[in-house]
């Protein structure tokens, strides 16, 4: 029994510590802002205060617009980025694995190179490109540049390389051309990998911060992540319960996606990156 006690104790402690920040946000969101400001936050939620969620969703709080709008921007951005990356990377990975054409490996390496060029190392010129293309403060500007993806291309390439040759040959004998094979065989067979990638990319899109900060100064295009950082930045007269309610709302979608698709996501992550 002693052998079992320590693992349980440590794991339970870790689970509680991991959950504590979220719990504080949940409990705090239902309490009075002035009480929180005095440092008297209670860990027991006050069910009477749940109305705050209605408030922030519909009206927002000081320094930030209604949260439904920010959630919509975030969701739109995450979906467009995740689906866009898949729609772009799948064909390009298909091209480099199933065909042989001039400059194939050059093209692959150029795509691979983007792994080494995060926004942080090309900040100003990217901003200039965006402004030359008149994409500042537009939803297109928010999403399009993030749709190119080396990670997704690499992951798909891995997946495609693992498809048995005989499966391809059988399809060719059955008379399937390249596009038909892609549609009828390859995409259905890679379904689990696509789902896993979707989770990773959705979370990636939802969690963007520096990029929207750079290209979207219009408050209408504030994502919920941008919005909440703005809220805690105002040090005076912060409505703490509203901050916490917004934080909870901002966390629910990506956490839900990860938890609901946990099995695929873990598999996709560990098989792809290594």
């Amino acid at each position, binding site marked *: 029994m002693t052998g079992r006690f320590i693992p349980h104790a440590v794991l339970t402690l870790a689970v509680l510590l991991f959950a504590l920040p979220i719990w504080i946000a949940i409990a705090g969101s239902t309490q009075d802002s002035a009480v929180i400001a005095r440092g008297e936050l209670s860990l027991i939620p006050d069910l009477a205060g749940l109305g705050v969620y209605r408030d922030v969703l519909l009206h927002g709080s000081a320094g930030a617009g209604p949260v439904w709008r920010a959630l919509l921007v975030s969701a739109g951005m995450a979906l467009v980025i995740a689906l866009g990356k898949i729609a772009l990377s799948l064909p390009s990975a298909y091209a480099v694995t199933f065909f042989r054409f001039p400059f194939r490996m050059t093209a692959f390496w150029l795509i691979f190179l983007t792994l080494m060029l995060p926004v942080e190392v090309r900040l100003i010129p990217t901003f200039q490109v965006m402004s030359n293309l008149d994409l500042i403060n537009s939803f297109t500007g928010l999403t399009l540049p993030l749709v190119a993806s080396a990670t997704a291309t690499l992951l798909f390439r891995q997946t495609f390389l693992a498809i048995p040759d005989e499966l391809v*040959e*059988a399809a060719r004998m059955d008379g399937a051309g390249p596009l038909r094979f892609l549609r009828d065989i390859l995409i259905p067979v890679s379904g689990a990998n696509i789902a896993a990638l979707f989770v990773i990319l959705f979370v990636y899109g939802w969690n963007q911060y520096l990029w929207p900060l750079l290209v979207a100064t219009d408050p209408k295009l504030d994502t919920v992540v941008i919005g909440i950082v703005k809220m805690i930045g105002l040090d005076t007269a912060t409505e703490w319960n509203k901050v916490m309610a917004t934080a909870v709302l901002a966390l629910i979608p990506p956490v839900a996606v990860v938890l609901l698709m946990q099995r695929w996501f873990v598999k996709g992550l560990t098989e792809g990156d290594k």
Partner: protein
Amino acid sequence: MAGLRLEGLRKSFGQNEILKGVDLTLADGEMLVIVGASGCGKSTLLRLVAGLETPTAGRILIDGRDVTRLDPSERDIAMVFQNYALYPHMSVFENMAYGLKIRGLPKAGIRAKVDAASALLGLDALLDRKPRQLSGGQRQRVAMGRAIVRDPKLFLFDEPLSNLDAKLRVQMRGEIRRLQRRLKVTSLYVTHDQVEAMTLGDRLLVMHQGVPVQLATPTEVFERPADTYVAGFIGSPAMNLLPGTLGRNGTAVSLEGTEVGLGTRRYALPDGHGVILGIRPEHVALDPSGREWPVEVVELLGSETLIHAGRTGAATLTLRLANGAPVGEAVRVSFPPEHLHLFDRATGLRLDPA
């Protein structure tokens, strides 16, 4: 009308010549088994016929039509793969129907063909299952079904039984043979298993290092192997191959001082010519007056006994005896002349008497 004709077929990958010229004609409805060790070029040959590889030189004709440059789908052939290659996301029915669907057959026509094939293969009850819900033997049948529904001019089999366990392999072997006889489709069957080759083929093509070494009926390949490679490859346990020299005017072979008579045969080669004497293990006779070989290993196989005899470092001899044969520390054996094979030691080719 010829089912399949190969003319001077060659294939190189870079500097590496895998297939060094194959000429072959298959009669309509004939089943030819291509057999050889791995790397002998047999799979490449099959893939060339399938259209999955392009030959470096030569022509392929199916039913008289030159298909050398055609896409696999235009050759009117079907292939059964070693690992089945079933589409994992499709049901048994969809797997069999896919090729027909691509060819644009009407739904009713597809249904009828798949139903006929699945009845033939006993798959009726499994049509809605996914491949992962099937046993190995059932998957193999679906793979065959997929080939059958297409009603092709030519069947290609790429080691279709090697993923099955031993018992199932014997059963499926029989089924393939029966089906092929019944459908009378010209077939090429690639295997490394010589038992499969012997039991399935109307004729065998034995390949070695990219070269076809013998093309003949199973009986002939077994009884008159074209060279030492075929002799050692076909038959289990393998034929004993003992180096010696020709003597007595070409009527005897001398093996390390012992003389073995060749009976009534006489070879028109000078005495002292280097030869290899071949005799199958089941043909070695126990003979109290014969030469003594020390016994190294005795293997009891149940229905028979194998004896491996010989001195370390020197030639060894395998005997196949009925159970209960008297075996001590050594055996005395003789080589009945009617069962002897003779090969040229320099070229390995079979020698025939004058």
